[in-house]
C-alpha cells in the first residue's frame, strides 16, 4: 500500500498550491475562497470536508436564512416559550412544571431513493433531536405527500415509507398519533416524508447543545461509525488513499431502531443522574456538525482525537469519519469525575461509549489523526458563519392566470342525485378516503397514554396521570392552496392545525414547521418561499403562537417542475385534563349538529374542484385569523364546560366530508338541513376556513348558543345525529354501509 502524506494543518500551510476538489464537494468558488480567507491558508482535506457539508443548503440554510429571520423578528410575546429557534428543538412550558419539546423535519430525498430506510432514519433523526433536549419522546407524527395514488411508482414509494416509519417507530415504543397522507401528481418524483416528534420533561431537565468547562470530556456513544451517508467525502478519500476500498457507499443511511431504543434509555438515565453538561445528536453532517456546534455554542474550544472513534469499517479515512452519517450516535459533554458513571450506564444498556476528546480553554476546534493535527478552525466559522444568499425572487408570470381561472365558475351538481354521486366520489377519493390501511401499520397504543390518535383532528397524549394534563398536536399543509397564494396558503396551514388542536379541546401554544419547496435558484420558487414564510410569521404573530423551530427542504423538484409550495405546520396545544377532550365521533342519537363560522362560496383549491373537475385555479379560502382565534376559544370553553360531545374541523372536502367522518367513526348517522341563505352544494362542499361542526346535547343547547351569541360567533343549527344514514333533507340519503365502503375501500385497493 502506498500512501501520500497525511494532509495535516502543517502540510496544508506548506503546500498552498495543492488543488482540492471543492466543486465536487458542492462548494461554489467564492465559498471555497472564503474558507481560504478564514483560515489564512488552504484547508486540509478534513477541514474542507467539514466546511463543505456544514455550508451545504441542508445544514446552513443559506438560501432561506434571510427569510427565516422573520420568525424571530415577528415572534409574539409568549410566556410559554422556554427554548426558541436554534437549538435541536424548541421547548414550551405546558404548566405543572412540565416542558414539552417538539419539532418537524423532512427526510424527502432519501425516502424517494430508498423509501424504507429513508423514512425510518427520518424518524430516528427527529427522535434524537428530542432526546438531545433532555426529554423522553412520547409520540411521533408523520405528514406525508406522495405522487398520484394510482401511479405505479407510488406503489413502490408509499408502502416502503409506511413500513419504514412503522418498522422504526414501532420498535422504539413511540405511539404514532397523527400526521397526514396527501396524494398529488406534483409530488411524483419528490415525495415529502416529514416526521415530527414530541418529548416531555420537567423544566429543570432541559439540556442544550453546548460544550463548556475546560477539561470536560467529550463522549461519543451509540452505534459505531461506518461508511454510510458520506456522499462526497469519498472523493477526498480517493485523493488520500490509492489502495482498494469499498468503492460504492450507500447514499442513504441505514437505521437500527433497537440501537436507538437503547440510546434513548441510556441517555435518559444519564440525564436523571445529572451527568450531562451538553449534548448533541449526530444527524446530518455527523461528527462535523456535532463537534463544531457543541464547541461554538459553548464557552471554550474542543480537542478531538479521531483515532478513538469506534469504527464499523477500519478503512475509513478521517474525512469520511467526520462526514459519516451513521445513525444512532450521540455526543455528550461530561465532567471528568462523572465520566465513569456515564460509561457505566452505557455499559448497562450495552451501548458503546468512548471518550474522544475534551473541552479546552481556547476557542479552536482541533482534530487529530495518527498524531497529526488535521483540523484547526474557529468552530463558529464552520457552524454559524456559512454563506448567506439573497436569492432573487419574483412573482411568477403564471400566477395571475392561475388565480383568474376561477373554480367558483366550474359546473356544479344540480340535482339531489348528482350531489349524492359527487359526495360518494369525494369521500372515496384518495385524499379524502380513510387512511386506516396506513395508520394501522403504526403502533398508536404503546406507552399507555394515547388519548386521541389519527383520524382524530389532533393526536393527544396524557403527560401526567394524576392531574390528567395532556398535550395535543396537529400537522397540516395544503399545497394546492399555497400554489394559488403562498402567503394565504401558509396561513391556512397554520389556521387548520391551530383549529384542529382547539377542536379536540386543547389550547394552541406554539408552532413548528417543515417548509417543503422546489429549487431556490428559481426566482418563482423563491418568491413562493418568501411569501409563505412572511404569511406564516405574520400569522403566528397574530395568533400568539411562536415558531419554536423547524426545517426547510428545498430542491424538491424534477427538472423544471417544482412541487406545489408545501409549508407543513405543526401546532402544539395543552389541555388541563384529558378527560375533557372532544372526540370527532358522533356519540349519541338526538344530539344537535351546529355549524360554527361563516360559509361562503369558496371552491378555489378545494377537494371538490380536484375530485370532480381535476381543476386547480382561483383563490384559496379567505383567511381570518381573528375568527380562528374566536372559534378556538369557543371550542375550548365548550369542551371544558361539557357543552359539546363531539367536534370536527371543516377543511378539505367541506362540511359533508367532516359529517361523514364523524358518522363513520361513531357508527351513527345524521340528518342535515340546508340552512337559510345557502344552497345545498355550497353548504356541503365549500371550504371556507374558520369553521367546525359540533354535536350539542339538547340539555346544553341554550347554554351553548348563548355563549356563541354573546361572543359573536355564528352558530347555525344544521341537523341532528340520528339513524344509520347521512341524509340531506330534500336532496339525498346515503347509508353508513355505502359510505363506509366508498371511504374505506379506496386505499387498500390502490396499495395493498
Amino acid at each position, binding site marked *: 500500500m502506498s500512501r501520500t502524506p497525511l494532509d495535516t494543518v502543517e502540510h496544508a500551510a506548506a503546500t498552498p498550491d495543492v488543488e482540492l476538489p471543492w466543486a465536487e464537494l458542492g462548494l461554489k468558488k467564492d465559498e471555497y475562497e472564503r474558507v481560504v480567507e478564514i483560515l489564512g491558508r488552504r484547508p486540509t482535506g478534513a477541514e474542507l470536508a467539514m466546511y463543505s457539508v456544514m455550508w451545504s443548503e441542508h445544514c446552513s440554510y443559506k438560501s432561506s436564512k434571510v427569510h427565516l429571520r422573520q420568525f424571530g423578528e415577528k415572534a409574539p410575546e409568549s410566556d410559554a416559550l422556554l427554548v426558541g429557534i436554534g437549538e435541536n428543538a424548541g421547548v414550551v412550558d405546558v404548566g405543572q412544571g412540565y416542558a414539552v419539546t417538539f419539532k418537524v423535519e423532512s427526510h424527502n430525498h432519501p425516502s424517494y431513493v430508498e423509501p424504507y430506510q429513508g423514512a425510518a432514519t427520518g424518524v430516528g433523526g427527529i427522535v434524537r433531536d428530542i432526546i438531545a433536549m433532555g426529554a423522553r419522546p412520547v409520540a411521533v407524527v408523520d405528514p406525508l405527500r406522495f405522487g398520484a395514488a394510482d401511479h405505479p411508482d407510488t406503489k413502490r414509494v408509499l408502502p416502503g415509507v409506511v413500513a419504514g416509519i*412503522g418498522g422504526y417507530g*414501532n420498535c422504539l*415504543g413511540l405511539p404514532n398519533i397523527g400526521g397526514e397522507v396527501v396524494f398529488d401528481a406534483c409530488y411524483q418524483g419528490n415525495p415529502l416524508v416529514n416526521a415530527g416528534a414530541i418529548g416531555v420533561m420537567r423544566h429543570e431537565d432541559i439540556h442544550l447543545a453546548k460544550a463548556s468547562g475546560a477539561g470536560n470530556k467529550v463522549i461519543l456513544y451509540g452505534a459505531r461509525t461506518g461508511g454510510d451517508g458520506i456522499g462526497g467525502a469519498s472523493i477526498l478519500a480517493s485523493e488520500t488513499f490509492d489502495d482498494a476500498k469499498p468503492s460504492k457507499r450507500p447514499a442513504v443511511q441505514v437505521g437500527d*431502531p*433497537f440501537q436507538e*431504543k437503547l440510546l434513548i434509555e441510556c441517555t435518559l438515565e444519564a440525564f436523571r443522574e445529572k451527568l450531562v453538561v451538553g449534548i448533541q445528536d449526530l444527524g446530518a453532517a455527523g461528527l462535523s456538525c456535532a463537534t463544531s456546534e457543541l464547541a461554538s455554542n459553548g464557552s471554550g474550544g474542543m480537542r478531538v482525537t479521531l483515532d478513538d472513534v469506534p469504527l464499523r469499517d477500519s478503512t475509513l479515512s478521517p474525512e469520511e469519519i467526520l462526514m459519516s452519517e451513521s445513525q444512532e450516535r450521540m455526543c455528550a459533554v461530561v465532567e471528568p469525575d462523572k465520566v465513569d458513571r456515564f460509561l457505566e450506564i452505557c455499559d448497562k444498556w450495552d451501548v458503546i461509549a468512548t471518550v474522544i476528546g475534551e473541552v479546552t480553554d481556547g476557542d479552536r476546534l482541533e482534530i487529530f489523526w495518527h498524531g497529526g493535527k488535521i483540523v484547526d478552525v474557529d468552530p463558529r466559522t464552520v457552524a454559524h458563519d456559512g454563506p448567506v444568499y439573497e436569492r432573487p425572487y419574483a412573482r411568477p408570470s403564471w400566477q395571475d392566470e392561475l388565480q383568474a381561472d376561477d373554480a367558483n365558475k366550474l359546473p356544479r351538481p344540480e340535482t339531489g342525485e348528482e350531489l349524492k354521486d359527487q359526495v360518494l366520489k369525494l369521500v372515496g377519493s384518495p385524499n379524502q378516503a380513510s387512511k386506516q390501511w396506513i395508520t394501522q401499520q403504526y403502533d398508536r*397504543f404503546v*406507552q399507555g397514554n394515547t388519548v386521541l390518535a389519527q383520524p382524530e383532528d389532533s393526536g393527544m397524549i396524557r403527560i401526567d396521570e394524576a392531574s390528567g394534563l395532556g398535550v395535543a398536536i396537529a400537522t397540516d399543509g395544503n399545497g394546492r392552496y399555497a400554489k394559488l397564494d403562498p402567503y394565504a396558503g401558509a396561513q391556512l396551514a397554520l389556521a387548520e392545525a391551530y383549529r384542529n388542536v382547539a377542536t379536540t379541546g386543547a389550547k394552541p401554544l406554539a408552532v413548528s414547521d417543515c417548509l417543503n419547496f422546489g429549487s431556490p435558484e428559481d426566482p418563482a420558487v423563491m418568491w413562493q418561499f418568501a411569501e409563505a414564510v412572511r404569511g406564516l410569521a405574520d400569522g403566528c404573530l397574530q395568533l400568539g403562537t411562536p415558531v419554536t423551530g423547524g426545517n426547510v427542504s428545498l430542491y424538491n423538484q424534477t427538472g423544471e417542475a417544482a412541487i406545489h409550495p408545501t409549508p407543513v405546520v405543526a401546532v402544539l396545544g395543552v389541555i388541563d385534563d384529558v378527560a375533557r377532550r372532544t372526540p370527532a365521533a358522533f356519540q349519541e342519537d338526538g344530539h344537535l349538529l351546529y355549524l360554527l363560522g361563516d360559509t361562503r362560496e369558496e371552491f378555489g383549491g378545494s377537494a371538490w374542484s380536484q375530485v370532480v373537475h381535476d381543476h386547480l385555479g382561483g383563490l384559496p379560502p379567505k383567511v381570518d385569523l381573528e375568527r380562528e382565534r374566536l372559534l378556538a376559544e369557543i371550542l375550548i370553553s365548550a369542551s371544558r364546560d361539557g357543552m359539546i360531545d363531539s367536534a370536527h374541523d371543516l377543511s378539505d372536502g367541506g362540511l359533508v366530508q367532516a359529517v361523514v367522518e364523524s358518522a363513520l367513526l361513531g357508527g351513527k348517522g345524521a340528518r342535515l338541513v340546508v340552512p337559510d341563505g345557502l344552497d345545498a352544494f355550497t353548504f356541503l362542499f365549500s371550504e371556507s376556513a374558520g369553521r367546525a361542526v359540533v354535536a350539542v346535547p339538547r340539555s346544553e343547547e341554550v347554554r351553548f348558543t348563548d355563549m356563541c351569541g354573546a361572543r359573536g360567533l355564528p352558530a347555525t343549527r344544521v341537523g341532528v345525529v340520528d339513524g344509520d344514514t347521512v341524509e340531506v333533507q330534500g336532496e339525498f340519503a346515503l347509508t353508513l354501509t355505502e359510505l363506509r365502503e366508498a371511504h374505506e375501500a379506496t386505499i387498500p385497493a390502490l396499495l395493498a
Partner: protein
Amino acid sequence: MTARIGVVTFPGSLDDRDTRRAIRVAGAEPVALWHKDKDLKQVDAVVLCGGFSYGDYLRAGAIARFSPVMDTVIDQARAGMPVLGICNGFQILTEAHLLPGGMLGNDHLHFICRDQKLRVENADTAWTTDYTAGQEIHIPLKNMDGRYVADRRTLDELEAEGRVAFRYVVRGEAADGCGNPNGSLNDIAGITNAAGNVVGLMPHPEHAVEPLIGTGRTDGLPFFTSILKKLVNA
C-alpha cells in the same frame, strides 16, 4: 395485603412501563425486573411484556429466552408460579418451551395495530378467572409476527385439553375488530399450559385498563384483577 407482580425489562422491551401501570391500576404492586439479573425479588408472578427484545432481528424472542432472568422464570414457572406473556412475551414463552408452538410473520406481511375482538375460551387459568368462558372482549393488537402455528398434534392436544385460552372472533364487522388478523391457525390468539399458570397471548391487555386511554375500553383489566385475587386468596 397485595401481590407483587414482576415485569421484566429486556433491551428493546416497550410495554414494560405500561404493564407496570396496568398492575398498579388493578391494585397490585408492580416490581421492575432486569434481564441481566437472575433475582426475581420475591415476586408472586411475572409478566413478560411486549416489545422487540434484543431487536428481534433473529427470530422474535429467540435471544431473550437465553437471558439470565429467564433461567429463574423458567424454573419458577415449572414450579407453578403464574407467568403471563404478552406479544413479545408470548413469543419468548414459546421459545423457552413453556408454551408449545411458535409465531411466524403475519400472513399479510404488514405490522397491524387494531382494536381486536377476542373470545375468552378458558376462564380457569390463573390470569382469566375474572372473565367468563365464551365472553367476547376487545383488546388492542399490535405486532409484526403474530401468526400462531403448531403442528397438527399439538393443535389437537391444545383443543382437546381446553388450552386455547383466547380466540380471534372471526365472524362480524371488520370495523368492530372481527377477523383473524394474522393467519393464526385455529384463530388462536392465546394459549395456556396444562397447569393453567402460564398464559401467553398476542393482544395487549395492558393497553385496555383505563376508560380514557387507547381504545377507551377496559376489557384487559380482568387479567390483572384475576391474578391479584388468586395471589391474595392463596
